């Protein structure tokens, strides 16, 4: 009996807020709330920046996952720990850290700014960078586990048949890890889409440039535009749910 009661507590903590959100959504004005200019601009920007962050994660995170899984070198565990840190780091701390690295007076940011006059802060690229920072570890962790645990006999057989490394990777390794990669990519994308703390701290908040959907939701709630905030929240909730349903075989799978 006692475990069931306590378990109900967990369900209440997790599920009740969602019920609360749903019961406050103004369903009749949903379409008009979402097609309002600000909302549309923020949703489009969110789509662009989250896909941009996913592209960054795939381009740079995937090779890193491969190296972490297949190469042995000193400090590998430390490196793995460091690159997965953003998964548990408070995003606002990440945002401040990004400022010190890529801000106008940051380690790399100052150099880039002095040489080219270009910067991440207050630019869409900054929002992409902030989202990549928090979401890339999800891809790295999933991909590394897949690279590590896959059955390597196929790769070995291909090698004995004379297939080069690139061909082996493309035709044998990639198909073998594709489901895991898709799951990692979906997780990373969903995390990027919901990013708030690092973005507002590092990139700023300007409609069409850095004001992604979570930022607009926050500002709308603050300035009394509850209907728009709830409509946008519903969109993010639906997307999260869709990602979860897509991953159900991996996570919620069969007992």
């Amino acid at each position, binding site marked *: 009996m006692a475990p069931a009661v306590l378990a109900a507590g967990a369900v209440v903590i997790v599920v009740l807020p969602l019920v609360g959100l749903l*019961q406050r959504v103004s369903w009749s004005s949903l379409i008009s709330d979402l097609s309002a200019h600000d909302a549309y601009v923020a949703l489009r920007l969110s789509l662009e920046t989250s896909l941009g962050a996913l592209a960054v994660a795939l381009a740079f995170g995937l090779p890193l996952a491969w190296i972490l899984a297949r190469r042995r070198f000193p400090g590998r565990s430390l490196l793995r720990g460091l690159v997965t840190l953003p998964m548990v780091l408070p995003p606002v701390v990440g945002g401040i850290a990004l400022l010190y690295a890529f801000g106008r007076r940051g380690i790399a940011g100052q150099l880039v700014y002095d040489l080219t006059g270009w910067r991440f802060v207050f630019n869409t690229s900054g929002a992409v960078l902030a989202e990549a920072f928090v979401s890339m570890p999800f891809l790295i962790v999933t991909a590394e586990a897949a690279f590590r645990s896959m059955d390597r006999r196929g790769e070995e057989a291909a090698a004995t048949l004379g297939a080069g490394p690139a061909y082996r990777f493309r035709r044998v390794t990639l198909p073998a890890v594709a489901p895991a990669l898709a799951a990692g990519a979906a997780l990373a994308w969903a995390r990027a889409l919901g990013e708030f703390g690092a973005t*507002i701290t590092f990139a700023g908040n*300007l409609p069409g440039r850095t004001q992604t959907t979570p930022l607009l939701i926050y*500002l709308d709630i*603050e300035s009394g535009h509850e209907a728009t905030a709830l409509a946008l929240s519903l969109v993010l909730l639906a997307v999260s749910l869709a990602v979860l349903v897509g991953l159900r075989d991996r996570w919620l799978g069969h007992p």
Partner: protein
Amino acid sequence: MRSRPVRTLVSVFTAAASLALAGCGSNASTTGASSSSTTTRSTTTTGSPVTGTLSVFAAASLTGAFNAAKTSLVGADPGLDLNYNFAGSNTLVAQIEQGAPADVFASADTRNMDRLVAAGLLETPVTFARNKLEIAVAPGNPRHITGLADLAKPGVTVVLEAVGVPAGDYTRAVLASQHVTVNPESLETDVKSALAKVTSGEADATVVYVTDVRAAGPAVTGVTIPDSLQPEITYPIAVVKAGRNRAAARAFVTSAVSGAVQKALEAAGFLPPR
């Protein structure tokens, strides 16, 4: 096989929903009970020591002054557990509307105060301070900004506060009256985060209150905006009706108008109410 988990899920949702409704009901009744109990307590008003927990929700620009006043307030009433919640006035309004446990609300403008007054959540507000706007730039003013018109210069990175944040709204009104079109690079959630963009070197300038520039010390340089352009910036304060400690709340409001809090405000550069 499939239908059982679904049915469980549905029953969980129903249970959660009914709990939510029950929560609403009990919440309303506690508020009623607490307000009646505070009425009895507030009959023992001035003179007697102020005790208990007091939550003051105050505009971000009041951070320095209110914190400075805390020492003398708690020194005079050791039984007082004074807590502040500083944010943009519009954020605080949203929080109080959602039932956040505030005893006192101090706003940086009358518009946000009026929102809560109209909602019937506050006792009658009183004005306790006035302020002025000032341009904040990097130390030594490397971009040579001399006035509002310079904020529109190309190459000058400006951040302002978001729509609804009092300082941002005041600034936009002044800029519009001067026919100066500024394209801010970011719209910050309150004066402190706008100022932080200048102190971190990301922005060249922002517009905040005179008191914010003063509180930031050597981290920024202030560029004065002439009195003829200054908007009327008044800070109202009010007791929150649903608060649990109305006696302490009223004492705090009194202190803000003419006591230790007012002294701290003056020391921080706020102007007394007219």
